[in-house]
């Protein structure tokens, strides 16, 4: 180990209170984010990817959430900090981009003031300087007529422009880590392409690391250096982006890739993953969590305590079932599921 990684997530468990008891939405996740890399967290809703991101920022309401483990950011455990200590890092060292630009901005504040607000607490700048910097930021995220937009309210801008403002807020203090939670999901496809290009460009310039949270495998393929695939609160596969898309191993990764219709190649039939993701409080706490959804693979092929293991350098897979996985010959197209919860 020559250099300290930017962020070390160690055995992170995030639990939510449901009817008095705590259930882990993120379960025993360990992940290292190096400097200057884009790591994507992929999975379907409820897999824990957003819960993970919010816990890094300390944005879970403390009274209903339990966060355990360690989050070492540049060597400091974020989970041991008080709110005011954390506030010195949030916005300065770590920036966050949210999904919906419509709701992520305060409707009663001008764009300029919302961007400057983060500088107010992290950089001591005279008002003049601050405004100049804000207008430069607006320019940098590709907003035309930044002097005018500075005085505008969010509702006066289009969705794409608003998302650029959200990005400008996140990078206002040039953070070393950006967390982007579904940054393009609420946008039209042409705007999505522009925002992806913008994020790539900013990443190149600032050498910021990005944790990209998304369910869209296309966005992952275009943006990420490494990919962590999450299922039911766990990382099931972790590898560089090329490996994930061309040599995936875990049954879930493989099934997911087979289930998306593509605009590039025409598939005759989409793969359907059997069953449903069980709700948080009904998750099996032992064994392979994906087992019920690949019922044609014998139970003896799964581990009892599935571990994330490095199967080749940089390629990690959970559970041994991947060695025996195959798609069912006759895709059950008319499966009846009686699984009303």
């Amino acid at each position, binding site marked *: 180990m020559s250099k300290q990684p930017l962020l070390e997530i160690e055995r992170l468990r995030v639990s939510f209170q449901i009817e008095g008891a705590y259930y882990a939405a993120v379960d025993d996740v360990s992940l290292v984010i190096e400097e200057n890399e884009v790591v994507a967290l992929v999975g379907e809703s409820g897999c824990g990817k957003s819960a993970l991101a919010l816990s890094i920022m300390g944005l879970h309401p403390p009274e209903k959430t339990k966060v355990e483990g360690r989050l070492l950011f540049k060597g400091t455990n974020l989970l041991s900090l008080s709110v005011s200590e954390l506030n010195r890092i949030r916005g300065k060292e770590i920036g966050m981009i949210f999904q919906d630009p419509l709701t992520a901005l305060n409707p009663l504040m001008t764009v300029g003031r919302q961007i400057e607000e983060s500088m107010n607490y992290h950089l001591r700048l005279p008002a003049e300087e601050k405004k100049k910097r804000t207008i430069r930021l607006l320019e940098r995220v590709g907003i035309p007529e930044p002097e005018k937009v500075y005085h505008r309210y969010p509702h006066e801008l289009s969705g794409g422009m608003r998302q650029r403002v959200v990005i400008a807020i996140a990078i206002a203090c040039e953070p070393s880590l950006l967390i982007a939670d579904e940054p393009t999901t609420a946008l039209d*496809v042409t705007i999505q*392409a522009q925002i992806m290009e913008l994020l790539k460009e900013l990443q190149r310039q600032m050498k910021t690391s990005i944790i990209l949270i998304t369910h869209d495998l296309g966005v992952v393929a*275009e943006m990420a250096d490494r990919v962590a695939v999450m299922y039911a609160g766990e990382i099931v596969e972790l590898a560089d982006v090329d490996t994930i*898309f061309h040599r995936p191993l875990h049954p879930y990764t493989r099934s997911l890739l087979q289930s*998306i219709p593509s*605009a590039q190649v025409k*598939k005759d039939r989409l793969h359907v993953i059997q069953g449903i993701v069980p709700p948080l409080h009904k998750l099996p706490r032992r064994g392979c969590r994906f087992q019920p959804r690949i019922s044609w693979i014998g139970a003896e092929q799964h581990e009892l305590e599935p571990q994330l293991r490095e199967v080749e350098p940089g390629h990690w897979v959970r559970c041994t079932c991947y060695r025996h996985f195959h798609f069912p010959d006759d895709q059950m197209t*008319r499966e009846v*599921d009686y699984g*009303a919860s």
Partner: protein
Amino acid sequence: MLLDVRHLKVHYPVRGGFFRRVVDHVKAVDDVSFSLNRGETYGLVGESGCGKTTTGRTIIGLIRATAGEVLFEGTDLTKLSRRQFHPYRKDIQMIFQDPYSSLNPRKRVLDIIAEPLRNFEKLSPHEERKKVQSILERVGLSADSIYKYPHEFSGGQRQRIGIARALMLNPKLIIADEPVSALDVSVQAQVLNFMKDIQQDYGLTYLFISHDLGIIRHMCDRIGIMYRGRLVEEGTSEDIFANPQHIYTKRLLSAIPNADPRERGKQTALRREVEQEYAQAYSRYFDETGRAYPLKPISPTHSVAIP
């Protein structure tokens, strides 16, 4: 031909000035024509605000057309009164985007699915239950789900309940407005496969409205690309994806994320190229007011909006 939409317009007045006079119109749908053959799936694609949803809703009579005709088996639906429209409600059904809000949470599945039936046929409770149960099994839900409530089902199952309701009256045309957008990818696949299956079994015709070009490609035989209330290109799935002609279509296609990380450089370069062409050739594709030209056929199946 099952459905023939001719010069459809839906305009909304914009009011301004002291006396709130009509000063302009928002042309949500601005002279759109297309037709659907029996048994095919026609995809209407475009970005938010392009008028695709308005078009679908106008066909089914939820929105009034400002001008134009919607010919369903030769009858112009826009000229019909509410009462005259009634029999056609049976033939045209709609599947909505959000399976969470389109089902009444206080009604049992039995009542939800039987509702359209009750409007058209008088059946004994026993016959009705039989019919509902058989359709539920057809959409892959167990027959004893009839006494459950929507919240007891997952998103994909709910969408199938919505489909079962649409199928109840043996419709000829189904308008599906973003039917899988609210669903997770694996559930999406399930619903899409299922829609293909029932299309064959029931001989259905789909008008499939979506912003997702991957899904459109997977589902549709023919595709119309909408932009600012107008069709800018129409053709078979092959025409559109392999040989796009209009600059907006090219822009839309190049914007789709490429699911192969090895194609990254190529994709970025393609986008730059298209953007450049868009900037340079804008005036070739749009008139002075920024309106797209009327469609012109360039092959028997392929039309493009060029002057």
